[in-house]
Structure formats: structure tokens, C-alpha cells
């Protein structure tokens, strides 16, 4: 495939970035999106230019490190996958592909397509844990958990913290991420104990970090690679009211 790429290049957090156009020839339709970018970077390096910086780690869709805003959608034109799981066969020969970083005040750009997602770490530090000793594996059966709750909690726990929800949201809101973390813990007896404090702390932190407010638009749900649903946002609201009143 021959492609035209329009990529956001930005030297550091404080310099203004701009789009730069590149052309790539003979890209295999079976290569992954990140492999395509690797080919581009090798060409750039061999020409003595700076390669395009982007985040990636596992390349198997489980770590959440990769995150690119491709043709107007986080993680590109497919559902329920991360960028590393995106393949070039989803594009057509001759396509122009616009690649941007996640854009949110809470996720400042480090360089090119790489953003600083420490804000998510700060949220987790605020309450994304349980402080009680839950014992070792055999103890898991000591406290009974409703199957229904275990399932919902596991669904929420699928969140990999990629930040696509923030990137997709027109308000750059972190409600889906926080909703997933709150749900995962509040649904289990081990996490219930500090559920009130957790939700108050995490919401306060979320506001402080400069994320926007939820308007129930649903872009997050549409783009989440792990299928986290808006139900988790509704549960976050409920947990918040429970802790407040």
C-alpha cells in the first residue's frame, strides 16, 4: 500500500507543534499500525531526521501504553482494540492518515505523539486500591461474592488505563476511567469498606487535575478498547451520592 501520513510533530511540551506530511510506499496490508510507523521511523533515521516519538510497550493490547488519535478516533478506525492491534488492512491504498496525540489539558504532550498520563496514576494513588489484607489465593473463597457482582467487577477491571476515553470525550472527561476503577472495587466486599472515602477522593482529584465534566455523550464507551460501558459512569454517580448524603 502507498500512504500519505499527516503526523503531529512537537519538539517538547513548551514548543508549538505542527503537522508534517510524509509519504510511505509498499506497506504490507498485513502489518500492524505500529509496524507501519516503525518503517517510517527507520526511513527518517536513515535520512538523518528525528523519528516520530510514540508510546508503546506490550504490542498485544493489554498494557494500554499505545495511544494515537487516528483519523478522528482514538485507537483508529476499529472497535474494541488498541492501536497496536490495528492492522493496515483497515485502510485503503492511497489513503491519507491523520495521526494526532491524545489532546487534553490533563495529558500534556511530551513529544510528538507521546503524552504524559501521570494524571491517571495520580487518580489511582487517590483511591484505586484496597488497604485491607485480602489474604492469599485460598482465602478468595472465604468471602462469598455474588456471581453477578463478580462479573460486573471483572468487566470494569478490564480497563487498561489507556486514556482513549479522555481522548475521545468532547469534554476530555475521565469519568469512564474513574467509573471503571470505582466499580471494580466498590462491587466487591474487599473494596466496599473504604468505598465512600475512595469516591470522594477520586472525584476531587479528577476535578483538580483539570479533566472535563461528563455530559453522557458516550464517545468514551464507543472508543474504549476494553468495552467499558456508561453503566460504570452511572454507578460512579450513585457511589458519589451514597458517600455524600
Amino acid at each position, binding site marked *: 500500500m502507498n500512504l500519505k501520513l499527516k503526523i503531529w510533530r512537537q519538539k517538547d511540551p513548551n514548543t508549538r507543534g505542527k503537522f508534517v506530511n510524509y509519504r510511505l510506499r509498499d506497506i504490507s496490508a498485513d502489518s500492524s499500525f505500529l509496524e507501519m510507523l516503525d518503517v517510517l521511523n527507520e526511513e527518517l533515521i536513515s535520512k538523518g531526521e528525528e523519528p516520530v516519538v510514540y508510546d508503546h510497550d506490550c504490542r498485544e493490547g493489554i498494557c494500554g501504553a499505545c495511544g494515537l488519535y487516528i483519523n478522528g478516533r482514538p485507537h483508529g478506525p476499529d472497535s474494541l482494540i488498541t492501536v497496536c492491534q490495528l492492522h493496515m488492512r483497515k485502510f485503503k491504498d492511497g489513503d491519507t492518515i491523520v495521526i494526532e496525540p491524545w489532546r487534553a489539558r490533563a495529558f500534556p504532550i511530551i513529544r510528538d505523539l507521546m503524552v504524559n498520563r501521570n494524571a491517571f496514576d495520580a487518580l489511582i494513588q487517590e483511591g484505586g486500591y484496597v488497604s485491607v489484607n485480602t489474604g492469599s489465593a485460598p482465602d478468595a473463597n472465604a468471602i462469598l461474592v455474588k456471581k453477578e457482582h463478580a462479573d460486573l467487577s471483572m468487566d470494569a477491571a478490564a480497563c487498561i488505563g489507556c486514556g482513549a476515553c479522555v481522548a*475521545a470525550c468532547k469534554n476530555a472527561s475521565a469519568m469512564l476511567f474513574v467509573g471503571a476503577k470505582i466499580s471494580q472495587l466498590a462491587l466487591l466486599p474487599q473494596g466496599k469498606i473504604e468505598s465512600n472515602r475512595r469516591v470522594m477522593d477520586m472525584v476531587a482529584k479528577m476535578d483538580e487535575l483539570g479533566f472535563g465534566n461528563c455530559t*453522557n455523550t458516550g464517545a468514551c464507551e464507543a472508543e474504549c478498547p476494553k468495552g467499558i460501558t456508561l453503566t460504570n459512569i452511572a454507578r460512579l454517580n450513585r457511589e458519589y451520592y451514597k458517600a455524600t448524603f
Partner: protein
Amino acid sequence: MSSIFTSSLGKKLLMSLAGIFLIIFLLVHMGINLLIVIFDDPMVYNKAAHIMSTNILIKIFEIILFGGFLLHMIYALILQIQNWVARPNRYNKANYSNTSFFSKFMIHTALITLVFLVIHMMDFYLKAKFGHAAEVIVDGKAYHDFASEIIDKFKMLPFVIFYIAAFVFLGFHLVHGFQSAFKTLGMDHKKYTPVVQFLAIIYSTIIVGGFSFIPVYIYFL
């Protein structure tokens, strides 16, 4: 408790409660307006309007209603500004995600509604309160003759078009607003959320249809 007025979720709670209150108010308002076309005698409407502008309970309700509007608008604006600030640099190519369509235009449909509201208040409410309207005397008692005034107005096409257009935009606001408020209140359910979404469309259609019916009926009378 105090975080209700300052946190993002608290502000959304207050604005959604105010929104639901306005949703109920709109139904009542529409019911009263329809009196003008249901009854041939304009005095039915004039008498209803008279009660609305003099009854003490209604006066108390009016204050609550103003409060509701203010609460809804002020928090909506604060939240909206925060949302713009949360993404200082826009995407070059954005919004290709599959989302609730009207949700993207809430502030726009809201501002159109607000313009209508301001005109509506200047045109009608102030007149009712401070009396510049024509009067009719029935059984020795003077009433504002709003019915004739409305009928005169809706005989003119530009008024009819402006009025209906304003309600269509309010309808767009409500299609998303109605169901969004439920989620904000923490209500989401596999079975019932689609029902709520369906009701949102029905409710919005009734509001737009009900309010628009009046000028159309009068215009073609």
C-alpha cells in the same frame, strides 16, 4: 455535603434535578397554552392567565421556577466552560466516534432556547406583571386580553416560524437532556435505559408538537 455545590458530579446533580423540574414545568405550560385552541371562548385562556399572574401559590411556584432556570443555566455554563478549558488544543480531525448526536450541541440548542426565553419574557411576562396589554371586561372585572394578542401575533408568519423554530431547537436539547439526566442521577439499566431513550423522543415530540400546534392552528384558522 458542601461538595455538592463545587464538585463536578455535584454540579451535574443540581443541574439535572433542575432540568427534570423544567421538563415537568414544560408539560404544565403546554397544557395551559393549549386552552387557547381547545376552547373557542378566549376568556378561558384569559382567566387561566389571570390566575397564573395573581394566585399566591403560583407566585411562590414562580420563584422556584426562576430559581430552577437560574440553577440550570448557571451550572450548565460553568460546566461547559470547564469542558472547553479541559481541551485547550483541538483536534485537527475530530468527532468521528459513534455518540449521542444531540449531546454535541447542547450548549448551542441551549443558547437558542435562552434567546427565545428572553424575548418571551420581555414580550409576555413583563406585560402580564406590569400591564401594558389590552384589557377586556367580563362581569365587571378587567382581564388582560392575552388570547386576542396571541391570536393577532400568530396571524403573522414570521412569528409562527420563529416560535416553531425555537421549539424545534428546544426539542433537540430535550432529546439528549431527558435521558442524560437519568444517567446523571445514577440510573442506568440494560432493560430500562432504552425505554428512557424512547420516552425522551416521545416527550420531546409532544413538547415540540404541542407548543407548535397553537401557532399553526391559529395561522390557518
